[in-house]
């Protein structure tokens, strides 16, 4: 069992909620499949009007968490509140405000694209028909084709159209771009950014493509060991996390002790350390003391993910 991250965890809803109430609040959520515990007493809060990038390694439980949040998977214990109401099962008027793109879209393969969208649109109070038509056209989805005949990428496009068209206040995306080609991914991100520009729109976005989260300037939530380890704005992460590289000819037998160190690797002559809020003066003094050269870099989100997840 890996150790807990020695990180100064910010308050779960570090970003202030627009109307003072989080869109989503999770208390002590636990979920297991048979004997395998996937989510362990998760406490999490998602403020309105933010894009949240949910990161975690394969099998960390991202899909399970997202499905539990929407009531699509029964939970073992804990409480979920969606738009201020307990989420015991999906239902009620708030469902008009939720859009969801599942990891794999394998629904209704016998239906034609147009029939499926017509069917779904009939349930929603706010369905953007113009947006649907525009996206079908620009993403080259043939409305006369059956869903079962679509490629995985086309199905994902359809799932995105279906999720965005009701103009949801909360959009939950479970690895939505995994099967998309670069053009489609870029087009999707443009639509997503357009959506998030409107006030009060919240997006929870599980992905491994960290560049997309950087583009969306997302708050990053890291799921590890069945818990949300932290939720912090990307800019804040960039500001406080640095890679400190100490280099000397004789190499390193052990990692030099540094305050705020989260992770350390020794690679040849270099000791590469991920440090939170590094004190530059102290580091320079340490480098002189250890007869090493000092380099400080700002890691990319992908670097941070690799180090922390």
């Amino acid at each position: 069992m890996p150790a807990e991250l020695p990180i100064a965890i910010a308050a779960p809803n570090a970003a202030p909620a627009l109307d003072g109430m989080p869109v989503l609040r999770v208390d002590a959520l636990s979920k297991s499949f048979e004997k395998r515990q996937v989510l362990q007493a998760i406490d999490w809060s998602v403020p309105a009007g933010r894009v949240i990038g949910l990161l975690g390694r394969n099998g960390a439980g991202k899909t399970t968490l997202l499905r539990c949040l929407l009531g699509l998977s029964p939970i073992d214990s804990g409480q979920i509140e969606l738009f201020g109401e307990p989420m015991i099962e999906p239902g009620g008027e708030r469902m008009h405000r939720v859009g969801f793109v599942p990891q794999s879209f394998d629904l209704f393969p016998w239906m034609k694209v147009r029939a499926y969208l017509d069917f779904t649109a009939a349930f929603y109070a706010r369905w953007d028909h113009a947006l649907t038509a525009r996206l079908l056209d620009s993403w080259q989805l043939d409305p006369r084709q059956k869903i079962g005949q679509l490629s995985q990428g086309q199905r994902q496009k359809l799932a995105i159209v279906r999720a965005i068209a009701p103009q949801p206040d909360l959009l939950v995306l479970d690895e939505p771009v995994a099967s998309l080609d670069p053009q489609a991914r870029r087009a999707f991100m443009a639509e997503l950014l357009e959506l998030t520009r409107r006030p009060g729109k919240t997006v929870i976005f599980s992905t491994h493509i960290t560049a997309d989260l950087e583009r969306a300037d997302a708050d990053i939530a890291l799921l590890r060991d069945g818990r949300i380890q932290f939720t912090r704005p990307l800019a804040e992460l960039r500001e406080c996390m640095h890679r400190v590289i100490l280099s000397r000819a004789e190499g390193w037998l052990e990692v030099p002790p540094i305050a705020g160190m989260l992770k350390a690797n020794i690679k040849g002559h270099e000791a590469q350390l991920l440090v939170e809020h590094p004190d530059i003066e102290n580091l320079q003094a340490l480098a002189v003391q250890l007869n090493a050269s000092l380099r400080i870099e700002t890691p990319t989100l992908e670097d941070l993910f690799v180090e922390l997840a």
Partner: protein
Amino acid sequence: MKAVWQLWLQPWKRMPVLAALVSLMWLAAMGMYLFSVDSEVDLNAAALGLIAFGSWFWHIGQGQILRELCRPESFLMPDFLRRLTWTAAIDAAQWVLLPALLSGLLGLPHAWLIAAALLCVAALGLVSSQGRRAGLLIWPIFIVAGWKPELAVAALHIALQSPLTAPLLLLVAVLILHLSLRPLLRIDDRDIETSPLESMSLDRSNNIGGTPPPRGALSKRLVGLFDRTSQRALDLALRSYRQQPGARQRLTLIRRLLLPHDNPLAIALRLTWVAAFVTIYFFAAIHRQHFNAAVVGAYATLLTLGRFPQLGRGMQRIRPNLADLYLTLAPTTHAQYQKTLADALLILVPISVLSAVAYTLLGIALTHAAEPVRMLMTTIIVTSAASLVALAVHLIGPESTLGRTLANIVVILGAMASYWGGYWLIGALGYVFGGGLVAIIALSFGLSVWFAGQREYQRRKPSFDAPMA
């Protein structure tokens, strides 16, 4: 109302032929009611029968559509349940209330009873399509009717007069609806799919659109038991292959992969399980008048041939997974790979024969059949030949659903005709000459079809494309 309309349209989009036929039946029944108003000919009872018959089929279709529709993601659609309830209310008005009301207005007695009975029929139709064991609730009625027909008739007369019958039927309908709808409307983690080539006899229903039917606790335990036998059989096959990596051991290993529930322990378990249901069937049917014990063998053959249509469907669904097997086996030629698959699946023939023999023996014991040897001999010969034919047909047969269905019908009708013909011939010419003749004709035909089918299958290039919807 747009959403309710869309929900109501689903049978027309998904099963247009069934929807059209059943709607015609409904319209014909309504026509009969109208005809009865001005005519001296009373067609009310016939109209009611037609409604009940149509309702049964309509709700089987509705049940299948519900199974496809009620996935967790669907519940994210606003007011999905409320709109589904509205659609159900319209359905009940069409198939229960309106016919009952018309029957009452046109002079048929027991309007409430008719309404409750029609609701029961609708509920039974729904439950039949769910693969739920609640569908078996109808069996006790047949069993009682078979054992004591006079008692059943007397009970029916008393029931017609009793004011309690309608509420009781209503309660039964509600119970059946509860049992059939509850798993659909409950959001649960999706069951893990079994091999597409697996026999569906456990679930008593097919996967729809690749979605396994929702399983009850008993089914889950049973599947768990089967999975344990599969794991054990795979471990044994692996151990054997590591000790002696020969062609036979390799074939066993492939079989354990493709047909995990066709290991000896699982076969024994399945036979026991099916035998329990066959026993119930016999208890229901044995006391019917003019019961022909020889039908047992035909039924056993029919039961075992039911495995092959699933194989045909599964061979399409499993294609993408077979790419991995192809790369693992690294065959020299496509034909070699195709031959390996055909050889691996050939094990289904002895398994089918074994199953048919077991079911026939059980039937013989239950019915105290007069000519057990004749039945067994016919079953063995016909099932062997029919299994070979069915396997060949499903390896190289048509891709379309309609084509496969037609091929299935031809195979099953052919097998049934062969069974009765063989049974008669053995009776007429004796075990040696009759049996020999049947064996020569049936097996030579079966083997010819199999070798031709196998040759054609080897000639074809393997396909790893996912089937189209």
